[in-house]
């Protein structure tokens, strides 16, 4: 699936899938792997968080707020 990466024993989707079926309980992930996956997840997430609040949402809240005030709802 990805030629760039050095891989371990299993390097195909099929192997991973068959391992999943045969293993009653998945092997516990090492802390280093967990940390790395977590870091990628947060990096991906934070990329969006760092974009801040798009104008459309600030405008929407302001518009709703003003309407609310005028209508006295």
């Amino acid at each position, binding site marked *: *699936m*990805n030629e760039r*990466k*050095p*891989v*371990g*024993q*299993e*390097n195909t989707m099929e192997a*991973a899938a068959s*391992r*999943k079926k045969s293993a009653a309980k*998945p*092997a516990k*992930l*090492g*802390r*280093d*792997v*967990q*940390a*790395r*996956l*977590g*870091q*990628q*997840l*947060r*990096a*991906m*997430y*934070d*990329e*969006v*968080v*760092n*974009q*801040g*609040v*798009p104008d*459309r*949402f*600030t405008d*929407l*809240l302001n518009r*709703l*707020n003003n309407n*609310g*005030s005028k209508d006295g*709802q």
Partner: protein
Amino acid sequence: MAMDESVRKAILGAVPSLRAFAISLCGNVDRADDLVQEMLLRALANIDSFQPGTNMSAWLFTILRNHFRSEYRKRRREVEDSDGRYAETLKSQPEQYGQVEYREFREALAQLPQDQREALILVGASGFSYEEAANICGCAVGTIKSRVNRARTRLAELMHVNSAEDFGPDETVRAVLASGE
């Protein structure tokens, strides 16, 4: 419904994280922003049901998550959508995410079952505790823990990662730096 300024600030302050959550859930920026907009409308319409002093962010995440769920079910009925189709959509639109750097990770994330994906994101990226995530998803704390564990294991399988070295030398260094959470 003139809003209290502190409420307005709390809502706006949560929007960036809600967008990131929505994009991670549905894999499409435009659809994610529609989800956020609908969430905002619903939150404001029901602002009276928010209990001051409780976690505004968790309340908004719950609304967004439930709305996404009902939309997803509706779409699924309409077009036979599935996690597989979602993954395919994602592959065809990598540019929507900006950098391609995390593309492999995103593709693996997209292949997770929805329950596992949302649990992993809430706990691993949004910064909620297991208890908060359980409240947002309406399930037991143990269920969230098990979903997060299964999500991590499956991600590692999908990305063929057996040790941190599989990420490459530079990234291993970053993983070490990031592990002091």
